[in-house]
């Protein structure tokens, strides 16, 4: 009963996500593995700036492709929130030659639709003074144009081509930092992917846009509005950030999703999907020389474009505790976030060590004290990486109170654990365990093509070098108990924190 398709899933703020993010959080590596990986890795950059990372892995005749677009919801402004994710959906709708039987004719109808839609918006803006009969007439025209456009469409062709070819895991996802497009294929289908993926970013056609907006509204209702923890996380981020776009959930505001236009999506694509803003990993049973040849042929045709500017807004230091309480029929929940620097700050590895010591496994401090001993929580954990890693994010603690216990008890217990980190040095055993587990967890991530492709693109783009997947381990090796105490004292302060809680209220028990 759990087969619901979650295509193109936006990163939804809920506990499930929290776990997923925790897994994605950088993990370290060992020198011998790095050497071995260097030998299997081929890197090259096309003249237009598009970078390829090709990792040979000949275990089975399959290959995974991962396109990392360095654009996420963080690049949106008010009025178009949700557009990075909406565009991701549109990237499945085909190109000038795939998904259409007559692009020229189709383009004319699409342009006509844009015009009518503008007229509808202009009329609607008049509010109570809007001319109802004119609105009705426009809406009729719009429907008619929509119907007309269908005539030129070859529905779902882009998806069906991959499906025919035996694809697995064809999908995409949008986060605060990035938009990522993935697919795995039998390894004799490399050239097909080259054609399909290059055309997607060379000649995209934004079709079925207004229907897809409806789909994204349903996605918002599903992930945010109908889930208690989803509702809370959206509020929580809005409170934790007052300046930086990390404060607006990836899914976007409903009113923006309802009014974004197709030309706005096209403009977003032009600005953020230039080849210099894309990084591609190919991992599996491939010949790097052939990949290079095909990459030049297919991706080399994409015109160069300037790399867009990064977000310049900086979240100012927080000057007092912030808090949001959701009165909700659901059971209680508490999440506490502390602002921290981005992934490239030297303290990042210290936060990784802290995560291991307080939050991973049955011997971790939060589990031991809150779940096992005090028995006030059924889950108590912590992680970093939300909202993102590229810009300064949050270190988050959270707990699900056990039945009959309150969020207040859990919140207090979390503060006690934080106070311990500030007051005393962690033990040598705890630190040694964190380092051992960092090594092992890295090794355990090296056995899947798609997992490796995700990791190396992430490190390449966000830290500037895929090797940091491995070098991260050296940084953790150097973390001392004193570092942990210093970091806890510096960041885990009352004025630097935001607290979000669900307080059970209403008719349900």
């Amino acid at each position, binding site marked *: 009963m759990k087969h619901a398709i979650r*295509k193109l899933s936006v990163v939804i703020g809920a506990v499930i996500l929290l776990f997923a993010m925790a897994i994605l959080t950088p993990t370290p590596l060992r020198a011998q593995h790095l050497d071995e990986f260097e030998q299997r890795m081929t890197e090259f950059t096309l003249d237009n700036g598009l970078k390829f990372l090709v990792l040979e892995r000949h275990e*089975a005749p399959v290959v995974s492709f991962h396109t990392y677009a360095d654009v996420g919801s963080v690049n949106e402004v008010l009025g178009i929130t949700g557009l990075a994710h909406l565009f991701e959906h549109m990237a499945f709708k085909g190109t000038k030659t795939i998904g259409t039987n007559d692009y020229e004719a189709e383009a004319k109808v699409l342009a006509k639709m844009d015009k009518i839609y503008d007229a509808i918006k202009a009329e609607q803006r008049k509010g109570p003074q809007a001319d109802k009969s004119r609105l009705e007439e426009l809406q009729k025209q719009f429907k008619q144009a929509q119907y007309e456009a269908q005539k030129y469409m070859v529905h779902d062709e882009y998806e069906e081509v991959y499906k025919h070819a035996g694809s697995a895991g064809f999908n995409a996802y949008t986060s605060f930092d990035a938009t990522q497009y993935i697919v795995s294929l039998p390894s004799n289908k490399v050239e097909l992917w080259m054609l399909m993926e290059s055309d997607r970013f060379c000649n995209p056609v934004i079709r079925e846009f207004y229907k897809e907006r409806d789909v994204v509204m349903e996605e918002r209702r599903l992930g945010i509005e109908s889930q208690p923890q989803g509702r809370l996380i959206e509020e929580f981020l809005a409170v934790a950030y007052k300046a930086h776009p990390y404060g607006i959930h990836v899914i976007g505001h409903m009113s923006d999703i309802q009014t974004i236009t197709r030309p706005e999506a096209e403009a977003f694509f032009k600005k953020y999907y230039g080849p210099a803003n894309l990084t591609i990993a190919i991992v599996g049973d491939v010949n790097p020389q052939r990949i290079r040849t095909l990459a030049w042929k297919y991706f080399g045709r994409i015109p160069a474009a300037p790399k867009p500017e990064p977000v310049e807004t900086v979240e100012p230091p927080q000057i007092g505790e912030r808090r949001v309480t959701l009165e909700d029929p659901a059971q209680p929940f508490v999440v506490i976030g502390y602002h921290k620097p981005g992934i490239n700050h030297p303290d990042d590895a210290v936060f990784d060590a802290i995560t291991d010591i307080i939050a991973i496994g049955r011997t971790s401090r939060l589990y031991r004290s809150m779940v096992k001993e005090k028995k006030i929580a059924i889950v108590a954990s912590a992680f970093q990486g939300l909202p993102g890693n590229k810009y300064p994010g949050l270190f988050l603690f959270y707990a699900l109170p056990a039945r009959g216990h309150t969020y207040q008890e859990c919140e207090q217990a979390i503060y006690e654990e934080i106070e311990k980190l500030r007051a005393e040095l962690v033990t040598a055993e705890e630190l040694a365990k964190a380092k051992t587990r960092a090594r092992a967890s890295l090794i355990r991530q090296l056995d899947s093509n798609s997992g490796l492709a995700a990791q190396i693109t992430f490190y390449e783009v966000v830290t500037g070098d895929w090797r940091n997947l491995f070098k991260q381990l050296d940084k953790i090796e150097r973390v001392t108990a004193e570092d942990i105490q210093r970091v806890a004292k510096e960041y885990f302060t009352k004025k630097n924190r935001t607290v979000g809680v669900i307080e059970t209220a209403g008719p349900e028990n």
Partner: protein
Amino acid sequence: MTDSGFSRIRIFLLLTGLLCCIASSCTQEITRPYESIKYPRLGDIEMPNVQKVTLSNGMRLFLVEDHELPLISVSARIRTGSIYEPAEKIGLASITGLVMRTGGTTSKTGDELDEQLESIAASVETGIGLNSGSASMSVLKEDIDTGLAILADVLMNPAFSEDKILLAKIQHRSSIARRNDNVGAIASREFEKLIYEPESVYARHTEYATIDNITRDDLIAFHKKFYKPNNVMLGVLGDFDTKQMITKIEKAFEKWEKADVQFPQVPEVQYEYRPTVNVVRKDDINQSNIYMGHIGGLMNDPDYFALVVMNRILGGGFTGRLFKNIRSREGLAYSVFGLYSSNYDFPGIFYVGCQTKSESTVYAIRAMTEEVKKMTESEVTDEELALAKESYLNSFVFNFDTKGEIVSRLMVYEYYGYPPDFLQKAKANIEKVTKADVLRVARKHLKPDKMQILAVGRPQDFDEPLSVFGTVNEIDITIPSPPPPKQ
């Protein structure tokens, strides 16, 4: 928020001497249509050598060497399950499965095991599900002796300490308290109860009272009944030498003695096809969760292969009819799904469903019903059949891309009494499926006029009352209060 875009774009000519020179830009349509791509022959799939061994105490081993990474993992299957627990003690199997590990063994407490395993970045975990038990171990290869010793100890000598039983009960009671917070979980739980009957072993669930009834003696007895070496399969995968590994395992489990296991009778699923209309009121959401369908089938049904093809056409991923029509064409839902599910040893469920805004609930139910009807009314198109079959056959290689899935599939087939080459047989049979086969099995197995409908949401906001489909049964999901504490 727009941008001058292409005005700043430099147009590049392609410079590669390796190819027939294709110089182009986005404005020049150079794309070869994908049909003209010639695919090289796919490389051979290297089938791992799975060694099957039965130890003298009856334990069956499946071993595969994999030297890519310095890791070893073990996964065990034990014939047991919550289907064998008494109705007044629902939760017993699950708690037994958990506390076997957390409650420690006769020689080491659970906390000591936690310390020992986590300090070497290893894990040993156990659990019991609906119709099988599991145990897993994962270690860096140098720690194999420690890992095996703990795994064996946990399977053979669990102590079931009272404090960890209490902890497991707290987890269960808290889950009960939280079970109406997630609308998707409400929908699938209540739908399963509609199909299998609420008291069926396949649909029933814990209540405060059934958790309260469980004692330590029950756990000990449940473990004793099923955990015998001749009732265990062990899959072993990783960086080891097979011969040495067999010796190690033999030694670790040498004190475990063979014994007969009696399995309680499980009532067969009886299903009467009937249309029903059901609603669960959930006031804090603005989207309905809809499930509709009836009983499904078994994988050993000769129709199974044509049903696989039918499933791909109706609900298969982004290219199935439901996705295309309910999501892409109509924009009614983000998530829409449909499957005639077949299980190994008890009937699955046929279901279609989606989540849609309250105001399109009835419209969506009608649209999905229409899709099911169409499957039974006319043959699928040649293109649909070709896509369903080709996608299955071309992606077949992904069944073999890790050694782990190969060994675990072999164990599953053996566990449920299916032939080891069941997957290859399925492939051969699926290649033969015709449009007529798909229509025949759809007519035989899908009953669009006898589907049970469930909507979880705010009926006051629905586009039309659900009663347009028949008499509406309102399901009360209020959680029964715990019984008063026993003295």
